[in-house]
């Protein structure tokens, strides 16, 4: 695999351990937001993800889920190799709002959590931090999601969630997709930013 642009003659020139890789903001509603770091020659983004220890996604999402009282909307994620789009994910999670935890058996999408929906106060988006790794070692792939919701100060739908997924595959992670389960998907302004964490040494 070719070196990334910031490796020049074998020397790392990137000054930060967190390297901004991609950013995507919806200009209109959509059912999903994708980031492909390497799409294997289809003409879109091609970045070398193999040198990162993990990928970090910081984002804010809001969905349009019809009906009254829809403060939040379930959201899913896929990650792994962009070829073949893996489909065997397992997950566990904990929710602060109802003090519950649970796990889910194998499913074709990974469990992310809930994001603000149409009954949430205006202009509220759900903030989250997700971390995916190990990017390139031979271990199975794990994702961690910290999802925060304050959708209405009187609502019981406010949540603080911690969830983990595993994908039983050991290939390179070079694709991340956030999927809305809402009938109308994510609204315009929903955004994700992707960073790669470098493992290099400066001392």
């Amino acid at each position, binding site marked *: 695999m070719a070196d990334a642009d910031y490796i020049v003659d074998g020397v790392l020139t990137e*000054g*930060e*351990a*967190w390297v901004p890789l991609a950013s995507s903001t919806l200009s209109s509603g959509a059912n999903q937001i994708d980031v492909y770091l390497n799409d294997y020659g289809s003409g879109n983004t091609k970045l070398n993800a193999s040198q990162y*220890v*993990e990928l970090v996604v910081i984002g804010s999402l809001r969905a349009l889920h019809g009906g009254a009282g829809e403060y939040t909307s379930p959201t899913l994620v896929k990650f792994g190799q962009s070829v073949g789009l893996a489909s065997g994910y*397992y*997950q*566990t*999670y*904990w929710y602060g709002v109802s*003090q*519950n*935890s*649970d*796990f889910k*058996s*194998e499913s074709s999408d990974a469990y992310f959590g809930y994001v603000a929906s149409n009954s949430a106060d205006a202009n509220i988006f759900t903030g989250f931090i997700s*971390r995916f*790794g*190990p990017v390139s*070692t*031979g*271990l*199975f792939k*794990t*994702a*961690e999601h*910290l999802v925060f919701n304050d959708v209405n100060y009187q609502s019981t739908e406010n949540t603080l969630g*911690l*969830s*983990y*997924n*595993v994908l*039983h595959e*050991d290939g390179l992670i070079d694709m991340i997709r956030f999927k809305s389960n809402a009938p109308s998907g994510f609204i315009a302004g929903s955004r994700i930013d992707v960073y790669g*964490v*470098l*493992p*290099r*040494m*400066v*001392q």
Partner: protein
Amino acid sequence: MAVCEALKTTTIEEDTVTVSWTGISNTYQWLEIIGYAKGATVNTIATMYLQLNGDTASNYSYKNIETFNASWSIGQWGLTTKLSYYMPGKLWGQQSGAVHIYIPQNPASQSHAKSIHARTGYVRASGSGTYENYAMFTNGYWSGTGDITQIDLKCDNGFVAGTQFTLIGWKDS
């Protein structure tokens, strides 16, 4: 000037009991440990330990929120000789646990005990319906007041090959 620098990376190539980072600079306000780890214990679960500046005395305590499958609990331990986090054990093939730990370095010219935040978790579920899944928030305490110069990560019977830890340093400019 970089505000976020990768200081150390250790990738385990064969079962190793201790990952020890020394010579850590005090020029960073925060230290962050990123890991994807698996224990060499021949079981479904292993315990990973964190110790600072080589201190193996009973100078640590911690409190956590711990989920195990569909149940959850709050626990606390102290005083103890190390901070502890669950990892998947060797029975689980290529499974690894995610580790994110944040350690404050001393402010300039000051000396404080350290409050250490960690998130750890892993998922293991088989098609036959065997599940063992953990998600943990842990806030730990170390009574040492010196600058942090050494971090030791240990695991009963060691970490297995493929385990990887990276130490990140954060500063304001």
